[in-house]
């Protein structure tokens, strides 16, 4: 991991994965890294520990099954690849081979959301619903590339499995200064304090939420931005305190299907706790196969770009009790 970086700079989450795993490989002689032919991210680990780097080729199901066998045998396996395939083709292996026996397998990958020009075969937009449904699975989505290393590091001592979702991972905005926030799996981050409304988000759209909050600030509104980077277990307390402290005005923004992801999880917490909200809007991908285009164009086209986010915040802020 680079020693220094600056807020707003771009950093490759992929390089963070590789360098962090290489460091962890030294500390944990039982750490294995597996990939179904998506090893470019992992060269640092591969070169340092060739005997603990397993590239199975195009075989996601066996990749997860083999990781399970390694974990049964007392090892710490990390499976890294493209999430559309790890979360769907290997879903049953993740559920049956990893989650059922509650093994410490880490699944980390790129291409969460509408990341670029791949088309719908290459977009992981259902993954948070699917992974979130699995008993024992911890589900995360990380936007700040510098966080990736710390989360991987924390995950080494976890008993059960974890899913770590990244965007494309090539150029990600640094969101936080080192040490600015305490990172704890299961706890959200208040990225910006505010009192008029809360926008909850995760992953690559945190940067967009911060931009939207800046626009609202220039209009005299104070918007809280919560980076809910752990979706499961969800930080229930932070949701409830945000409802109380920001007038019950919520917008949820995510690069995922609008139903089944973070918005659904927050709605569950709200309903289970009998909280009455003043306003609730969810911004995400509607039930469509999204087509081609750049990330930003696709978000605009499907109603969850920056302008839509600002508009949604204005609506909830003006909503009456």
């Amino acid at each position, binding site marked *: 991991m680079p020693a220094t970086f600056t807020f707003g700079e771009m950093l490759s989450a992929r390089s963070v994965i590789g360098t962090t795993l290489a460091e962890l490989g030294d500390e944990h002689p*039982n750490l*294995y890294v597996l990939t179904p032919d998506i090893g470019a991210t992992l060269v640092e680990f591969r070169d340092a520990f060739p*005997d*603990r780097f*397993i590239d*199975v*080729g195009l*075989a996601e*199901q*066996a990749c*997860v*099954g*083999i*990781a*399970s*066998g*390694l*974990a*049964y*045998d*007392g*090892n710490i*396996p990390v499976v890294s690849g493209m999430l559309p395939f790890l979360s769907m083709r290997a879903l*049953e*292996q993740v559920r*049956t*081979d990893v989650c*059922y*026996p*509650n093994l410490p397998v880490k699944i980390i990958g790129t291409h969460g959301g509408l990341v670029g020009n791949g088309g719908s075969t290459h977009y992981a937009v259902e993954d948070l619903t699917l992974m979130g449904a699995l008993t024992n699975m911890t589900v995360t989505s990380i936007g700040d590339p510098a966080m990736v290393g710390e989360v991987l590091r924390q995950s080494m001592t976890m008993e059960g499995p974890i899913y770590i979702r990244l965007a494309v991972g090539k150029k990600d905005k640094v969101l936080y200064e080192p040490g600015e926030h305490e990172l704890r799996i299961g706890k959200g981050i208040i990225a910006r304090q505010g009192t008029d409304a809360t926008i909850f988000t995760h992953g690559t759209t945190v940067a967009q939420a911060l931009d939207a909050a800046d626009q609202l600030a220039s209009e005299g509104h104070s918007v809280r931005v919560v980076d809910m980077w752990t979706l499961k277990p969800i930080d229930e307390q932070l949701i409830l305190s945000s409802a109380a402290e920001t007038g019950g005005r919520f917008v949820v923004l995510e690069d995922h299907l609008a139903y089944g992801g973070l918005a659904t999880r927050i709605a569950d917490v709200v309903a289970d706790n009998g909280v009455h909200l003043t306003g609730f809007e969810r911004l995400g991908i509607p039930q469509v196969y999204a087509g081609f285009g750049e990330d930003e164009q696709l978000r605009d086209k499907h109603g969850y770009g920056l302008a839509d986010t600002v508009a949604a915040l204005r609506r909830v802020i003006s909503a009456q009790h």
Partner: protein
Amino acid sequence: MERTPLTATEERHSVEELEDLAFELREKLLHLCGTYEGAVHIGGDLSAADILTALFEYGMNVDPADLANPERDRFVLSKGHAAVCMYIAMAIRGFLSYDDIVATYGQLDSAYGMHPCKVQLPGVEASTGSLGHGLPIAVGMALGARGRNDEHRVFCLLGDGETGEGSVWEAVMAARSNKLGNLVAFVDRNRQLMTSFAEERVVFEPYPDKWRAFGWNVIEIDGHDMSQIVAALDGLPASDSDTPTVIVAETVKGKGVDFMERNLAWHAGSLGAADLERALTALNASRVKETV
């Protein structure tokens, strides 16, 4: 490769003794099937009875008194629906109590159900049941052993029907690519799926050649001839060799009970008291016939 058995004082069983133990396993299977009112996968249990007896009583280096011994051989039941056969084979070997199995099987809070669960029954090595999952898990265990230069073997029992799952062949390639000579797969080749005879619906043949084409060491045996099973286990290449081995064992679904043999109705079922007597009589008759 000769290794010190975990139970060093125990002499290895003769073929005749193993045959007796396999008979005992079948009897116990039928008794469970006669007392439990729900379905037992009796057809595929009976086809695997000789293989599992040979593994737990002869081929595998295991110690029921020391479940977590790192030197133990590992066993993954990929055909998870044969869980009852495995439970009872393990009970006869001393891992589990047959009385407990019979008394609680399939009941609320029992450790024993239709497919094995590692969390509920720590004595088994892996949770399985969904077909096509066991061999990848076994590959992972074999890789782990290699990583520590351990000499133990990892055994895996598959049904031939489940080798219709693509994940099996992914694992077959991974095992060869990673030179896992410490991995031994058995295929219980009973040639029956749940609702059809295999070659009617799915062409598996030339079956052993498919494994050979993937670079495995292939041994073909009669899976009900104990001397052949023992010979195959005795003839395994050293666990530090490069080539994984598959033992393709020709078997009969329902083996030992004439009205169950090669009968699609007996993939799974339960026996009432009258049918239990009939089944035990048939089992005894088959034994007499074979020993004559």
